[in-house]
């Protein structure tokens, strides 16, 4: 599902930050196009 895709990561500082999601995707055949960690409220 993620292979070959451009990934947009919308992390949450009170939940799971963008960096943690990025770390899960490291080395996979995909491209993180944008990653941020915001307050969702």
């Amino acid at each position: 599902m993620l292979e070959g895709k451009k990934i947009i990561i919308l992390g949450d500082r009170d939940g799971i930050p963008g960096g943690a999601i990025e770390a899960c995707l490291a080395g996979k055949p995909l491209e993180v196009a944008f990653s941020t960690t915001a307050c969702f409220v």
Partner: protein
Amino acid sequence: MDLENQKRVKALAEQFGKENIVVLLGGADAEASGLIAETVIAGDPAYAGALTGVPLGLPAYHILEPEIRREIDPAVYEANIGMMEMVLPVEDIVKEVSSIRQKLLS
């Protein structure tokens, strides 16, 4: 959803095409995560940002959803997500985001 991020997501969808994008969420609760999913699928429900009236139709999943989890090495997942998985309302988040996707993403 943050107004700057709405602009950024819109620009990326135009640049790469919606069929090439997957959005991954890390929201702390079901309601907020569902709102973000709704925004990138059907447009900004708050009528405030660049995605107002812009149904991008981007597939949005929470990192806690099984479809995403099974694509990640279990040890890597545990190391990066495991701690928060214990404290977040996983069932509620998964239910909300998957239901928004089923309802709005045709």
